[in-house]
């Protein structure tokens, strides 16, 4: 058994070569699949339908109205969308969002993945360390956000600046959260720090799923840990990595609390992401229609990116 090695070569799509060669019993699975599939999926679809599809339709409907607070909504057709695309604040958030989400995902997944692989060599001994890193992920973002603020304070009260000074680089100490050029990076570090627990856990699960026989063989051959990590663990833990990237990326897209606490979207809107923009428009200013339009645009953008990916990967299901 090839362990985690996939054997996707059998899939050829509908009526491909292999399907014609399959025994009768297997082919009959196809016909019987649909009712079973729906049995497995029905509860999921019902819950999903209520919790997601129904509000989604409402959101799409709202996006065609101009809603200011509690005033009666006014139908504006595509007005919100045209305004969004000519709103410099919104357009600016697109670039910031890209930087933020990619930055956070890169930090969280690379650290999480590497540490997960390292931990795989000594799962029991490293358990407390994994708990520590995961606690950063689990604990309230508002409170840890405040801790980051205190650490990043300008002047003598900031821990980071105090450290930098004591290391002999007084010019390097600056108001990290106050300077529009550095604020986004400080935010990415803090958000990445918090997000790392998830990739760590998922990649660790993925690495642990690698059959021990494969690892044993490598050890017998005298491979060093680093080489084992690079050549065996890394490629074989990709499922965990993929999911970690997906969840971290999308969490970063929707991030609000950490941005609000650290920078409030500023200074001068330099750290405002699409998620923050959506929240600000919808909840704070209660321009539900405008916020809904931004949500729809975001959804469409993510759809465009993900459809090819999903099609490519579901092609290999048989």
């Amino acid at each position, binding site marked *: *058994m*090839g*362990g985690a*090695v996939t054997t996707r070569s*059998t899939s050829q799509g509908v009526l491909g070569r292999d399907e014609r060669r399959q025994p009768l*019993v*297997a082919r009959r699975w196809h016909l019987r699949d649909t009712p079973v*599939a729906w*049995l*497995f*999926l029905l*509860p*999921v*679809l019902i*819950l999903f339908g209520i*919790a*997601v599809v*129904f*509000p989604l339709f409402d959101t799409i409907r709202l996006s065609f109205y101009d809603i200011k607070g509690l005033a009666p909504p006014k139908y504006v057709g595509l007005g919100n969308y045209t305004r969004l695309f000519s709103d410099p604040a919104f357009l600016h958030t697109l670039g910031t969002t890209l930087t933020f989400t990619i930055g956070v995902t890169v930090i969280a997944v690379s*650290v999480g993945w590497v*540490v997960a692989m390292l931990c795989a060599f*000594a799962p*029991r*001994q*490293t*358990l407390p*360390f994994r708990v*520590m*890193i995961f*606690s*950063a*992920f*689990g*604990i*309230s973002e*508002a409170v*840890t956000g*405040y801790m*980051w603020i205190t*650490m990043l*304070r300008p002047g003598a009260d900031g821990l980071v600046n105090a450290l930098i000074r004591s290391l002999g680089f007084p010019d390097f100490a600056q108001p990290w959260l106050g300077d529009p050029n550095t604020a986004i990076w400080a935010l990415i570090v803090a958000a990445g720090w918090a997000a790392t627990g*998830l990739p760590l856990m*998922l990649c660790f*699960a993925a690495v*642990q799923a690698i*059959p021990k026989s494969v690892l044993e063989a490598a050890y017998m051959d005298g491979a060093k*840990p680093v080489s084992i990590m690079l050549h065996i663990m890394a490629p074989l833990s990709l499922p965990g990595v993929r*999911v970690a990237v997906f969840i971290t990326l*999308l969490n970063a897209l929707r991030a609000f609390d950490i941005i609000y606490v650290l920078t409030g979207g500023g200074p001068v809107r330099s750290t405002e992401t699409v998620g923050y923009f*959506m929240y600000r428009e*919808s*909840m704070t200013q209660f321009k539900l229609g405008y916020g809904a339009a931004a*949500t729809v645009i*975001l959804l469409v953008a993510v*759809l465009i990116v993900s459809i090819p990916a*999903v*099609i490519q*990967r*579901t092609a290999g*299901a048989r």
Partner: protein
Amino acid sequence: MTGRAPRWIIVLVGVIAFVWIVPIIGVVVTSFRPPSEVVLGWWRLDNLTFTLSAWTRIWDAYPLADAFWTTLQLATLATLATMILTPAAAYAFHFLKFRGRRLLLILIINAFVLPQQVVIIPLFQLWRELGLIDSFLAVLIPYVGLSFAWSIFLVKNFLEDFPKELIEASRIDGCTPISTFRHVVLPNILAPIFALGILQFLWTWNALLLPLLYLRSDVPLPVLFARIAGTYDLNWDLRSVAAIITTIVPLLVFLVFQRQFAAGAQSRTGAKE
């Protein structure tokens, strides 16, 4: 577990972990010191006094036991539901062929983009019509419904590396899809199932927005603690205590569940190497 645990690895991970935990140490310290000492930084050593004042104030002012129980119920139910429903759904998406498979999958996965704010108002109106406000269902349904966006993706990803030969073999043996699922697939995807259990428990335990609006009489911990801070009195010592209290149980769940994949899920039923 190869029995060979290079020292430098443990030390390296340890160093990373201790650096990582600095802000958390800040939270703990802030909960044990009077606010006037930590205002300029919790690491300050000029006036070092430790006090349990914040802890006793929280204990006295808030009905912690009830909130704990409510939170436990909500998180447990939501987690069990997701852990039970997701693997079957992921299996169906990955191994079964049926109409609308791709469309459905795309729809479900992309729903993850939706922020919670989009969901609350329409659902609020719906629950009021149905008289479900203040019932657990009002939060459980969205908890579980929203979780599928990422949970199905998670399990499906682990299924992609699942050896097809086992499925083929069981089909040839005449097993139905259901029994294939039960006997062949399920035992081997315990790792991702418990991983998603950890995540769902954490997120539903910490959930604030939905229970805030939908629950009135029995509220979970985050809702209880939401009003510690006033508009202008920030009460970081109390909030630190609240954060610590709230985080303990999900960390315990993490500890317990991760055994399922830390032990090394090398047992795969079916064909030998």
